[in-house]
């Protein structure tokens, strides 16, 4: 009995050995499912940094650090001294780029902004008598009715423009997503500079604000900059009127998605950023208040 048990044990050991030897084959090793994913290991820094396309987005897209919160530096406005870090929700400032949504938002805004006041007169609106110009027959020329006829000079316009509303519709959730996508795009590119509340300058002169823009590399040579403030800042707004080639300043109420995408960078007061984010999060916040 005991010898039989030993025999079966040795047989099973042999099969086990055979199995392990077969699994030494590199192919099966590769194909075998791994139980644990190896942690990303830091490789040594390459001697020459690659000057090719830099896929930072793909690196950060899977980075768990970006899952919930992103970090923002708050600067003191004219001096640009970093003051502290603040965190924002990833769904506010770290959304993936959606060109289609941005395009729709810009078109929506453009349509909405159209004045639509072009107006022409039809033949019924042109002033004058409706008397027949010449007899129907016997003159040797074409038959004509009234002089307001669209084919005559001074006549009406057949299918001319009339005042109308060009506005198109865009779902609010999509528009709000476009706002945050635009801000996220700026954030990812490092072109969103958040400043401490109360950003204003000392002197209301264009030459002074030009100095500031030149010092911080925000000016015309660096693609101009949009400055967004929470409310009207007397000195800054007055000064920027004289420094239009270096950028422009707008209050948060005047800004739209296209403005955010237009210039080289966006310098925004924290208050204004918070206001934009609070206003444009209808796709994140339920309209119905939860019962709990």
């Amino acid at each position: 009995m005991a010898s039989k048990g030993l025999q079966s044990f040795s047989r099973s050991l042999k099969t086990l050995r055979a199995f392990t030897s077969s699994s030494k084959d590199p192919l099966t090793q590769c194909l075998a499912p791994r139980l644990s994913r190896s942690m990303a290991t830091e490789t040594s820094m390459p001697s020459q940094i690659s000057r090719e396309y830099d896929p930072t987005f793909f690196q950060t897209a899977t980075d768990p650090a970006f899952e919930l919160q992103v970090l923002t530096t708050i600067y003191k406005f004219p001096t640009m001294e970093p003051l502290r870090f603040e965190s924002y929700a990833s769904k506010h400032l770290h959304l993936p780029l959606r060109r289609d949504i941005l395009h729709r938002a810009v078109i929506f805004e453009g349509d909405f902004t159209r004045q639509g006041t072009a107006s022409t007169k039809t033949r019924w609106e042109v002033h004058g008598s409706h008397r027949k110009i010449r007899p129907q027959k016997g003159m040797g020329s074409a038959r004509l009715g009234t002089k307001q006829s669209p084919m005559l000079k001074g006549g009406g316009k057949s299918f001319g423009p009339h005042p109308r509303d060009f506005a198109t519709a865009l779902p609010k959730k999509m528009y709000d997503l476009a706002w945050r996508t635009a801000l996220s795009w700026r954030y990812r590119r490092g072109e969103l500079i958040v400043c401490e509340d109360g950003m204003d300058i000392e002197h209301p002169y264009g030459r002074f604000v030009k100095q500031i823009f030149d010092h911080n590399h925000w000016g015309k040579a660096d693609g101009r900059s949009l400055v967004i403030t929470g409310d009207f800042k007397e000195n800054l707004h007055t000064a920027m009127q004289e420094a239009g080639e270096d950028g422009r300043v707008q209050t948060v109420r005047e800004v739209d998605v296209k403005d955010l995408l237009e210039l080289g960078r966006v310098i925004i007061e924290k208050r204004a950023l918070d206001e934009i984010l609070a206003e444009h999060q209808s796709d994140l916040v339920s309209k119905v208040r939860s019962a709990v």
Partner: protein
Amino acid sequence: MRRITIPGRSIDLLRARATGQTPSPYLCSVCKHHATSFSTTRIRAARNSKVPLTEKIRRRIWGTDRPPGLEDPYGGKSVFENTRGRAEVEEPEEREGRLEAAKPTPDLSTYEPASTWDGLEKVGGYEGWWEENWDPYHQFDGFLPKEVVKDSDEITAALRRAVVEVFALQWAGLPLRDISAAAPGDDLTLEVQISPSAAGAALEFSQEASLEDIVQSLTPAVEDETTVKGNQTESEEDVAADRSTIDPLHPSSEVDETAAKENPTESEEDVAADRSTVDPLSQMTYDELVASWDPAWLQISLENPEVKFAVMKRTMQLTGLRIPDAAIMPAKTVKALLAHLIKPPKPRKLVEALEQKEELMNLPNVSIYAKRITPIDKHKRVGRWKVIEKELMERGLPVTGHEKEDHAQWR
């Protein structure tokens, strides 16, 4: 009272007669009003000739026209009277006469009146007023230096300096938010060894650069400035001397130090000059410096947000590079931050991008140009273009493009 400069009025004549010799008292009330409501220098000059009341009384008392004693017994003249007196001594006409006499008489024989304004001195106007009077007093000074460091080795050195300084502050138990309190001076951290450890980083200070020195260099020199105002840059000298001893890489630093001590009244410019000569980088370039460090310092963790913020802030202050938030966020180690910092900016033109490709540039049959190669360029390359151009000019044919008349024909 309003001052007017009217050359002369009939009312003045009237008044002078009224107050002066003839005591005829008649003046209509309107004229009286006019005469008193203006004050002109002319009237004041007229009044000065009058003998003051106190003098009159003195004369009456003494009974003579020249009474003994002080001219004004009630104290000396006031400041205003002194200045007025000085002005009166030199009458305007006299002064002008004197100035004209002092002026060298120009030689009018070679004088030619200018027919155009070219080359003439421009007088008056407000052109350049702001540049002269406003700009020098309202210079903007930002936190970041205006000049951005471009050399990658220099950036690496700046980042290492920032890391060492931050951890030195942490070791000293000082708040990390004071990292940028002092304006960046000389780099004291070159000899400090830094390596990653469980608590962040381990620093090994050498004799030349101690923890105290580094921390002292980071604290704002408020007390220094106050003493400098009082006694002639003594403390500044000390600081300079300290710094020169700290510098290990400069063999002649002792000479400078003694020289500095011998001249205690050296001006600040000289001190700055001393420092620049003491600069270790004059002998050791940045790439040698970076190569001399143990690369382990790149593995220092930046997980602590406070440390990360301080390092970022100091690096920005030292290099002038603004580190975007999207790069700060994922940087877990110093290496990740450095990888972002020394990344070259995206080329703006296709030529720049292509020129950076080694494999393209090395190909024998490929050449890269910034502009389109035209037939003219090909002619120029073989030296034929000048001849062609000359021939075309001789025949009156257009050298480049078409003549306008050609288009006009078909219009």
